[in-house]
Each structure stands twice: as C-alpha cells, then as structure tokens.
C-alpha cells in the first residue's frame, strides 16, 4: 500500500490541520486502547464510563484529573522553557527531587514563623531546583558539555541523595518506613474544597500565564525565539545569548523544583521514594506534544492527567497490571505523536503508470 503513495512535505502546516491530526491520533489511540482493554476482560460498557465519564465528566473524577495535572503542568512547562533555548533538560526528576527535599527540610526543621512556612517552602524549592540545573548549565556554557548526559546523571544523584535521607536522618520514627514525617497543617497547600484539588492549581496556572507572557510579548521571549532558531545568528546580531539561555534554563529548573514541593505539600504530605517517578517521561512528552507552547502545555497536561487517573482506576477496580496500564497509555500517546505525520506531510496517491 505504501508503494502506491508518496509523502510530500507541506511547506506550511495550517493550525486547523495540526489540531485535527492530533485529535484524530487521540481517537485512534483511544480506540486501540479500548480494543486491548476489552481483550483483557474489561466490560465494553465500562470503558465509556471509566475513560470518559469517571475521568472528565463527574466532579470527583475531574477533581482527580486536575490534581494529577498540577505537577504535570509544572514539569511540562519546565521542559518546554529549556527546549525553547535548545537545552534538553533530562534531569527534570533530579530538580523535582531537590525541590521536594527543600520542602521536607523546611518542614523537619520548622524553619521560620508558621504563616511564612509555606511561602518559604515554595521559594526554597524553586531555588533548589534552579541550583541543581545550574551546574549542567555552567558546564554547557563553559565547555560545551552535553546537558543530556549531565542533567540525566544529576537526576540519579538526586534520587540517591533522597534515599540517603529517607533511610537515615529523615526516616519517620513513628512508622519506621523510609518516608519523612508527615507535614504539619501549616506546611500544606490549602485544599480548594473540590476533592483533593489544592492551591497548587493557582501556582500552575500562574506559571502558565507568566510563561506565555514572557514568550509572547517580552524582549526576553523574542531573544529566546532567536536563540532557539539560530544561536549563531542571535549572537552575531548582538543579542544577549548567554543571559537568555541562563534565564530560561534556570527557570526550567525552578519550575521542576516547585513541582516537587507541590507534590509534597499538596498531595503526599511527606517525602517518599516514589513521588517523583515518571515525571521525566511525562515532562518530555508534554513539552513535545505542546510544541513548547505554554497554553498547549496546560491542555496536554490536562489530558495526560486524565489518562493517568483512568490508569489508576483500571488498576484498582479491574485488576489490570501496572505493565498493561503503561502499555495502554503508551499506545494512546504514540498514536497522537504519529498522527502529526499527517499534518506535516501530504499523502499523495502515485499516478498509475
């Protein structure tokens, strides 16, 4: 069949077409996922109920989806910011761990007066995340060390540091498990009275708005566009390339650090070994699908949050194994990614000779 068709690259991709191809890919992926789930014994009738109604259409389900979305927005935005200046932040989880540790540290030491505790946690977590990416950034700018390697390895180091703390000084004396003691009430993000949705939502929305504004209308955003599109040309044009890269990359680390603090203070209320797992892949997928556009990051994070919520339901209520849940999620995401082909290329039937 492929022999009878040609792919012709489109000179320009209309927005409508791009949106339609994403949507088509999503539908295709969901259909495929549904087939797999039916094979696994999930009743057909329950699919609509679980995937759509329970995830997006009931207040409780929507609340869960939004809660899952909050840290996804922050890490997705963090990845997107770094990508804008051609910096591959593969150390999202490392910066997230540092942010989570900063939050835990403040909580354990009861630093500062209680009313200022939460702002202090959030500020320190951003600082910690930014510092954790500052080293790869400096290595890259000074000696052109590949940030893919350095951020990735620093991510592992951060995780071992977390383990070191949890099995040592920070172990919860009451339970003996390798988790930190639970946070005091003053150290928690307030709930919004809608399921588990917490005030981290406002932080995520504010971050999206701020990023969209910086990229859209500020001089710094223009510099970043130029640096991302052609670094040498930006330098030759006299733009402050180093400053631009530094601001965007440090901002990326700060957002990922904030995500760590939001997870600890918003949903988990303690540091454990499992809270950061999977955010690296999510962050990259979100930034890629959103094409590094902050508003699109919000939309993609919401849908991905739904996918994760639905996965949780499948695991708990239908006994689907973790591996199968990941497989189903992978099928959906891969379909969406592949569908972009049909926006970028036109498929033309070969003329019969």
């Amino acid at each position, binding site marked *: 069949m492929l022999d009878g068709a040609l792919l012709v690259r489109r*000179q320009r991709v209309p927005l409508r077409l791009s949106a339609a191809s994403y949507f088509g890919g999503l539908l295709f992926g969901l259909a495929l996922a549904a087939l797999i789930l039916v094979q696994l014994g999930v009743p057909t009738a329950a699919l609509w109920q679980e995937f759509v109604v329970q995830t997006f259409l009931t207040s409780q389900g929507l609340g869960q989806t939004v809660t899952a979305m909050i840290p996804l927005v922050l890490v997705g935005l963090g990845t997107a910011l770094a990508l804008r200046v051609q910096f591959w932040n593969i150390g999202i989880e490392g910066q997230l761990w540092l942010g989570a540790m900063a939050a835990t540290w403040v909580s354990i030491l009861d630093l500062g007066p209680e009313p200022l505790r939460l702002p202090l946690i959030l500020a320190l977590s951003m600082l910690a995340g930014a510092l954790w990416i500052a080293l790869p950034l400096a290595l890259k700018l000074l000696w052109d060390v590949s940030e893919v390697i350095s951020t990735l390895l620093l991510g592992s180091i951060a995780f071992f540091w977390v383990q070191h703390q949890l099995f040592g000084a920070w172990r919860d004396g009451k339970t003996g498990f390798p988790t930190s003691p639970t946070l005091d009430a003053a150290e928690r993000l307030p709930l919004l009275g809608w399921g588990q949705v917490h005030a981290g939502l406002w932080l995520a929305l504010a971050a999206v708005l701020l990023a969209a504004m910086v990229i859209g209308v*500020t001089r710094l955003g*223009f510099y970043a566009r*130029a640096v991302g599109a052609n670094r040498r*040309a930006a330098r*030759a044009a*006299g733009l402050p390339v180093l400053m631009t890269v530094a601001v965007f990359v440090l901002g990326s680390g700060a957002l990922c650090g904030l995500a760590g603090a939001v997870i600890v203070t918003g949903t988990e209320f303690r540091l454990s070994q499992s809270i950061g797992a999977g955010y690296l892949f999510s962050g990259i997928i979100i930034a890629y699908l959103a094409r590094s556009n902050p508003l699109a990051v919000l939309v993609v994070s919401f849908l991905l949050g739904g996918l994760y919520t639905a996965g949780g339901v499948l695991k708990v209520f239908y006994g689907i194994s973790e591996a199968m849940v990941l497989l189903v999620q992978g099928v959906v995401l891969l379909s969406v990614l592949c569908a972009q082909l049909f926006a970028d290329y036109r498929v033309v039937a070969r003329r019969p000779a």
Partner: protein
Amino acid sequence: MHFPHPGPQEAPGRAPALLLRGIDKSFDGHRALDGAGFRLDWGEVHALVGENGAGKSTIMNVATAVYAADAGEVIVDGRDVPLRGPADAMAAGLGMVHQHFRLVGSFTVAENVALSLRGAGQKVSVAEAARLLAARAAELGFRIDPAARVDELSIAERQRAEILKVLLLGAGTLILDEPTAVLTADEAQALLTLVRQLARRGRAVVLITHKLREVAAYSDRITVMRQGRTVLDAAPAEGLAMDEVARLAVGEMPAAAPRIAARPGVPLLSIEGLSAHRGDGSRALDGLALELAEGEVLGIAGVGGNGQPELVDVLSGLRRPGGGTIRLGGADLLTASPAARRDAGLRVVPADRFDSAMAPGLSLAENLALTGVASGRFGGRWLVDRRKMRREAERLIADHEVRGGGPATPASLLSGGNAQKLLLAREVSDGARLLVAHSPSRGLDLRATRAVHGAIAEGVARGMACLLISEDLEEIMSLSTRVCVINNGRLSAPMPASEVTPERLGALLVGHA
C-alpha cells in the same frame, strides 16, 4: 484488425537519451513546472539554462523520479518505462550529480562507491571498488585517491568522486546541477573539458546552470526555461546570440548598478597584524593588514580556503582573534562583543546567510527585527512591539521588491535571492558605516545579483565603506574601488580597480606575484 503501435524508432540514429513532454508539477499550489519539455540526444552536452526558480532542477528531478510529475511523460532512451524512484532512474542509466553531493563524509571514496554499487545490487568489495575507481579515473585522465576520506577532499575533488560514482553505477546520461557554482575558474574549465570528453564518447550530458556564459562554449545545444515553461527548446549552441538567450531566460532585466567611483573619504577602518587560528589549530589569518576609507569598496579576491571565512568571523566577533588591532572610526573592536561592533556601525553579510545571519525558522519580520530589538527599536525595555516589527517588515519587503512572502512567512520559504535581498535591506540600513560582505551574490541569478549589488552600491554612495570578500572575480571587478588578494591569511598590496586586469589578478591568486 489493425492495432496502431509504436514501431521501431525511426532512423537515423537512436532515440533521444531523454525526452520529457508536457510536464506539470506543483508544490502546495505553487506551479513549478507548467507543460515543460526537454529533449536530450546521445553524444551531446546540453545546457539547461534559466533563473533561480525557473524549474531547471525541478524538471531534472522529475526526469530522475525524485519528484513524481502531476502530468506529462518521461521517456528514457526510447522506452516509456515508469520510473518509481531515483533507484529506478539510476538503473535506467540516468545519473544525477546534485548540488549537494550524495557522499558519506566519513567514508573513503572507494567505500562510497562500494556502498552505492551494493545499493544497486552489485556485490562489490571496497578493494574492487578502489580498482574500478582508479581505472575509470585513469581512463578519463585525472587522479583520485580511492583511499582518501571524502570530508578531507576539496569541493572539486568531491565533485569528481561523485561523477565517477555515478559513471560506475552505469550512467549513460549524466545530469549535473549547477556544477560550476562551487568551483574556481580553473576547476570549472577542467570539469567542462571532462564533460565534453564524456559526450564525445557517446554519453549524454545535461548542465543545469544559471551561468550561461560559463558553459556556452562547451555546450552543443541549449534549452532555456522561464517560470516553469520551456522558452527555447534544444537550440544548437553554434551561432546562437548569447545576449538573446540571456534575455529569454530573464525577461525584463533590471539595469546593472553603475560603477562606484573612487572618492577617497575619511579613513574608517584600520586593521594591523591580525592573526587567527582555525578549529584544528592551523593558522588562518597571518598578520593581515588593511586600511579602508568611507565611500570605498575594497575587494578581497582569493581562492577559497585562504582565510576568508575566518576573517569574516573575526570581524563579526564570532571568532576570537589571536592578536592584532581592529579599529573602526577610532573604536578598538579587536575583542569587542558583537553588540558593541554593531553599535560602532559594523554590518556583516556572511557567505552562508542561514549560518550566522538569519534564522530559517523565524518569520521575515522577526529576521528583520533581529538586530534592532536589543537596541530598543521595536518596543521598550521589557516588551516587544510586534505591530511595529510587522510594519517595518512590510515597508522593507516592498522597498526591496522581495517576492515570495509577507512579514509572517518563515525565512526558509524564500528563494536564495529574495532572502539575500532581505538580509541586505537589514544590514545596509541606518547607522551602517562598514559592511563586510562575503560572496554576497553566490548562488544568485542575474536579477538577484544586480539587486544585491545595487543595495551595496547605494550604501556606499551614502558614505558606507565595504569590505567585499569574494571568489567571484566578476563580482569583485564590478563593485570594488580597490582590489587585493588574500593568500594564506595575508593580503597583497591593494591596487586601484582601474589598474586591475584579469592577468594581474590571476597571477596574484596563485600566489606568484
């Protein structure tokens, strides 16, 4: 019953090597070919001439099945066999040498040939490929080292390697896309002689070019294309008036920029003892010195690889110099940032505009604003004024007759000529005191070349100085008020343009003057 059928080809001689009829081809609504035709006979060198975008490369890409035509027929050596891709075309004996060679840089020449032959289904070892290469090269009367890595070869050597590869693949018909664009005059002559020799031995050769004069003497027939149509079909080259052919190819022609009169102005640029090294540590600039006054154009001729790109990079601030002085109107620029250089009035048009001057992914408006945003020309301290950017872009696009896009069009969609016009519009603007231009008309057709030269001449008439670095002697001669030659990172003593003759320049170019 009688079935009409195509009989054997009418004598005399064979069917044409290549026959294209009524070819249509559109890209996203843009009509690149509009009922175009082309006929190539065995034993001839055939020049396919036209401006950029006339459809020359497109029609040959249709012939070699890189593109599928929307309509029309392709007949190779009298056989109407459908070609389903470049591999089919190669098997049918059509070998195309593209502008960007299809060679693996980290492989040796022999490995490249072996790779292609195996791709075509022949089991050939690298040693056998090396033997075949050496034999074929000797037959054609030149030397090539089959064991040399391709990325260590000069452009001319790479081209020869590519031609040999295509011949060894069994090409009876050779299609060369702008083969002389990357060559020096001597190399071009050697290539054209080789090509002629191949044709005399029975092959057929197409030379796609917009430099008619260069190839005319070596061509047997000439086909001219304009705007996707064939406007002169396989006319014998002998006795053809070249001016007439050029007029057919170009249509209405803008006037050439008037010669720039030498009016010595205030001294502006002074460079002394400038040195720089390449990435591999070799010396690129070796105590280079020059003086330049306002309203002057100093042409720096020279064979490629004598330090030209390094000189441009050192001047624009992208490469750290080893030592020396660069003074522009009193300001010391040796280690100044690119921003400080722009403030001092330095403007640069590099050889490859998408390497260090423009961003292909940004819109025309953004590219035009690239150098103005930092100084606050488009908005305040914090915000950018995109409306102003767009208005400015609209104005420049109209003033400089840039075609093929508006302010929001990505720069990558413009043709080379239009992109270059746009870059000159940006660089030769308010505050430009010195323009460093490296091969500003390379790859451009006559019309765009004239527009680019006109823009430089206009700036110079306003008192701007220009350092014109080019391997194209015609370009050097048509713009410069003084001329010198760069050789191994040093400049010869400049001479007034009126005293320059091709002979004197030629002697300097090879470094024996």
